[in-house]
């Protein structure tokens, strides 16, 4: 705003009416129109977009607009506040038409057998005890792969056996194939299975929408799989919320790890179904399963770091996590599938949609 230095009076006095005129595009030095007699400062302030930190009208909570002194004390450089009101609903409808997917073209998530990584997400089970097959939570695989296993990492749940499975590996021909697979089951409180039983809190009944085990007040469970740099099924660990289930009691190491997983091929990542090459099916039955706050680290999070991520059952702003320097992907699903970290935005298609969590 340009206010001339030859204002009148001793000492010089600014004319508020002329300031308003200047703000509205009429030069300060112009004559004051006869109709410019009364000003309502609340209208001026209330009509302006002054608060870029929030879409809410800047009131004090009691219906009164903040005073100018309040605005002076406002931290205009504060970080955006973290909200967690939404989640993404993966419809039980199948095919790419209803998928939640992105293609990683810049190799951000091209982990191989020797990579350490962590994949963590919140999930609200929608399947019933009659699913009797598996539901895929997340899968990354070579774009346009002939085989599901090509450059693949996936996490799924077998409702028929009550097991979470994490698997990675590669397949380039029908004979050139290998994978490392860990499975954790939750209904047997004995031997190697007792850790999973204690971690999940499902009891002897299988995981479903009617038996969510340890979940927060919204019905969500945080599932985390970590992997060290060792190329083995034993390198993967499961956490149910902050509860460590440890390495998988059921491990399969099929093949030697050759041909190696590519670090340059584009990979297609799908949430809530079994990937493009298998037709984006295995999405559950009965009701949609909800997913929220997916994070991928290029690091094997420790037990204490998973506890920090769990944050006592309240999803945190993962960009403030102590391991955030290794955070490669982070999707909040607050309104869309766009990434907060990485440039890979999920496309949420068809009947899959953002919903209130």
């Amino acid at each position, binding site marked *: 705003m340009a206010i001339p230095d030859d204002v009148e009076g001793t000492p010089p006095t600014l004319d508020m009416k002329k300031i308003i005129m200047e703000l509205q595009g009429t030069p300060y030095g112009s004559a004051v129109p006869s109709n410019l007699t009364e000003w309502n400062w609340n209208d001026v302030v209330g009509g302006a977009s002054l608060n870029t930190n929030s879409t809410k009208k800047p009131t004090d909570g009691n219906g009164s607009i903040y005073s100018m002194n309040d605005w002076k004390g406002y931290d205009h450089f504060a970080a955006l506040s973290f909200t967690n009101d939404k989640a993404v609903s993966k419809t*039980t409808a199948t095919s790419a038409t209803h998928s939640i997917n992105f293609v990683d073209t810049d190799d951000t998530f091209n982990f191989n057998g020797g990579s350490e990584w962590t994949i963590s997400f919140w999930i609200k089970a929608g399947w019933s005890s*009659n*699913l*009797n097959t598996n539901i895929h939570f997340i899968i990354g695989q070579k774009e346009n792969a002939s085989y*599901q296993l090509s450059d693949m990492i996936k996490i799924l749940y077998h409702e028929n056996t009550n097991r979470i499975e994490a698997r990675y590996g590669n397949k380039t021909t029908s004979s050139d194939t290998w994978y490392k697979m860990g499975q954790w089951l939750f209904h047997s409180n004995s031997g190697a299975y007792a850790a999973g039983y204690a971690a999940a809190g499902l009891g002897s009944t299988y995981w479903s929408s009617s038996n969510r085990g340890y979940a927060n007040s919204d019905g969500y469970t945080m599932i985390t799989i970590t992997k060290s740099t060792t190329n083995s099924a034993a390198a993967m660990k499961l956490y149910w919320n902050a509860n460590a289930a440890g390495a998988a009691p*059921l491990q399969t190491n099929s093949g030697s790890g050759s041909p190696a997983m590519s670090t340059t091929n584009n990979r297609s990542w799908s949430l809530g179904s079994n990937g493009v090459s298998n037709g984006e099916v295995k999405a559950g*039955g*009965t009701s949609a399963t909800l997913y929220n706050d997916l994070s991928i680290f290029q690091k094997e999070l420790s037990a204490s770091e998973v506890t920090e991520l769990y944050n006592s059952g309240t999803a945190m702003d993962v960009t403030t996590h102590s391991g955030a320097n290794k955070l490669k992907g982070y999707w909040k699903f607050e309104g869309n599938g766009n990434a907060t970290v990485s440039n890979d935005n999920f496309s949420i298609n068809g009947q899959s949609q953002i919903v209130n969590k």
Partner: protein
Amino acid sequence: MNYYILTEEVFETIDKDNVHFMRKSIDRTERLVATTDLISDRVRSFQTINTCSNYTFTNHADWVGDKTGIEVEELEEGGYISEIDD
């Protein structure tokens, strides 16, 4: 490997150590199994792993709750553990 649909009663009599894959029907009255044993008392027998898989896709309402079927990969993986997968 041999692929069968068995009644619950017959399944209880077979050697579980030789069972590679098992899936209960939705109504829990039958079992689809992959086993190295030859079983004569069966509801249905399949020539190949593919015909077995295809049957479950055609009759998915009996075998899975998501309108798909049992994939060949699942049958190949097996994973049956007799002491915990009853």
